[in-house]
């Protein structure tokens, strides 16, 4: 990883965190309808992967998609407005938190359907392969999603067709209030990879560099026509499953409970000479400002015009 990358990562990590903290507050004030799932705590995964992706690479995301969207380059003002259901939202206010998307940025959508992304990502990779492009598709998914049949189908299909896709599991130990250790017969998600004849790698998902390095290798394999890779990132969500969750299932012993990937990366990046403390401070301040501006933008944006209820059904 070089300096430029590290600075980009640190910027995106901070943008995500400030974004999510802000959404948390705004939700608390009753300004956001519906279900909101926050990504705070898992920033190392989105940024470690996305640091290696181009605009034309594709990602599929989850219900917990804000972090992926920010890291993939989606417009932050448009995201905030979308989450508040405003006209200037990325989807004109019609999608909301669970459907933040920007196909032109390669972001194929947050997805309210757990396990909805495996096949979509394989399909994006099929486009890449069929058109002979030098890109990859990345599927983000949770530990809970790994028990959906679509995991099995998506990984098997991608493997037999040697599709350039990377399956990135964000194992935050819980699917809603159900621990992974209960819901999954396997101890890790990565150990399921051999069933699909693909490498399965488990990395410290609180450490951006570990995520970055594993992704780098996976991209090389994918682009060399060697097919998909499964990367499991051990991580932790700071907030509840969704806003309003009491989190009665969390325990003192949860690994990663007391870790935070952002200060961890700040320290490492400074130590490795990728970033100075001053640069870090500046990034933090700028990120904070970016989010403040996004909130102002979103709040100022009007509600969508009522006739848009009826548009965008068919192309």
């Amino acid at each position, binding site marked *: 990883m070089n300096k430029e990358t590290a600075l980009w990562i640190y910027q995106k990590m901070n943008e995500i965190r400030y974004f999510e903290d802000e959404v948390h507050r705004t939700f608390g004030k009753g300004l956001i*309808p519906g279900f909101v799932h926050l990504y705070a705590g898992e920033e190392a995964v989105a940024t470690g992967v996305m640091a290696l992706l181009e605009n034309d690479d594709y990602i599929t995301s989850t219900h917990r998609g804000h972090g992926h969207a920010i890291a993939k380059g989606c417009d932050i003002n448009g995201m905030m407005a979308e989450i508040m259901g405003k006209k200037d939202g990325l989807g004109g206010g*019609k999608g909301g938190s669970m459907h933040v998307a920007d196909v032109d940025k390669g972001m194929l959508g947050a997805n309210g359907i757990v396990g909805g992304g495996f096949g979509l990502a394989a399909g994006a990779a099929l486009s890449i392969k069929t058109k002979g492009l030098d890109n990859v598709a990345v599927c983000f998914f949770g530990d809970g999603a790994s028990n959906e049949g679509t995991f099995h189908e998506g990984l098997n299909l991608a493997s037999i067709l040697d599709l350039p896709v990377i399956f990135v599991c964000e194992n935050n130990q819980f699917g809603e209030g159900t*621990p992974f250790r209960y819901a999954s017969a396997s101890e890790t998600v990565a150990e399921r990879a051999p069933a699909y004849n693909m490498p399965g790698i488990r990395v410290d998902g609180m450490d951006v560099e570990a995520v970055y390095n594993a992704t780098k290798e996976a991209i090389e394999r994918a682009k060399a026509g060697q097919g998909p890779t499964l990367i499991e990132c051990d991580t932790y969500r700071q907030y509840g499953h969704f806003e309003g969750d009491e989190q009665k299932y969390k325990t003192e012993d949860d690994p990663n409970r007391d870790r935070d990937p952002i200060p961890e990366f700040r320290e490492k990046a400074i130590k490795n000479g990728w970033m100075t403390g001053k640069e870090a401070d500046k990034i933090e301040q700028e990120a904070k400002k970016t989010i403040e501006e996004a909130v102002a933008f979103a709040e100022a944006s009007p509600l969508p015009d009522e006739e848009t209820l009826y548009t965008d059904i068919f192309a």
Partner: protein
Amino acid sequence: MTNRNITFMTAINEAMAQAMRKDENVILIGTDVAGGAEVDHLVHDDGRYDDAFGGVFGLSKGLVTEFGRERVIDTPIAEHGYFSAAVGAAATGLRPIAELMFNDFVGFALDPILNQGAKMRYMFGGKAKIPLTVRTVHGAGAGAAAQHSQTLYGMFGAIPGVKVVVPSNPYDAKGLMLAAIEEDNLVVFSEDKMLYGMKGDVPEDYYTIEIGKANVVRSGEELTIVAIGKMVQVAEEVANILAKDDISTEVIDLRTVAPWDQETVLESVKKTGRLIVIDESNPHNNTATDIASVVADQAFDYLDGPIKTVCAPNTPVPFATNLEQAYIPNAAKVLKVAEELIVDLKKEPMI
């Protein structure tokens, strides 16, 4: 029999608890119906469990504490798998209540319903019974957007071998849930999430409400409004408004959408000659069109005007609050179509 003022949610919880007390073959299975499986601090000293969620809306809270994890079963997120298991369990002597957290997830659970549970008895020449209750949640209004707000009971209702129940208030919710669990057939029990907080008088005792029978919640002579679930409130609101204009409206709460109560609806329309059906489903191939079709066939000669359906538009459910409100059928929309029907009954225009 004590009546308590309790919520729609509590009424369903109570029904499930009473059914589970009465018959040890009744189990509850679904994602996070308890929550917190294998979390040590949720296990009491006496071996009983606390739940972490008790269902994503908290509807099944407490059941795991009373009935244990053998009968209140948290599943992996694997709807097709655990719905198939529920069908298999039902075919072999249990009486499962299987929860589909949002009806929108039907794409992960349809085959066990469509091709297994609904058809086994028929294909096997009567040699199977499937006492399975599918609890699920529909409806817009919570800002839950396109994949968590659909109204899909019409899709289930189109399947031969499936009964579909949609309660409109706490009293009905309890009685219909107990009836559903007593059924030896696959019953989809579809709850409008916007009704969860609704309060009403509910007897403490065990009671059932007959599946397949509609409820005439208001008698009238000039116009029939058939409504489903949450839409019953809209129908009553409309009836009240029309009453000011001296128009007498009969309001029918359908209660069961499959098989729906043709007798009650036809009788009413034969009396009033005018029909509006309110259904939050998308407008095509739904329960409202089904009712319209049967009435246009069987009660044609009694009709004094066109049959009106008031449904959601043919769009996904939008997220933004104003768009979502515009999506849901409401009194204004019903009054607008009512205009055309009642024009000859009225003295002066109303809206």
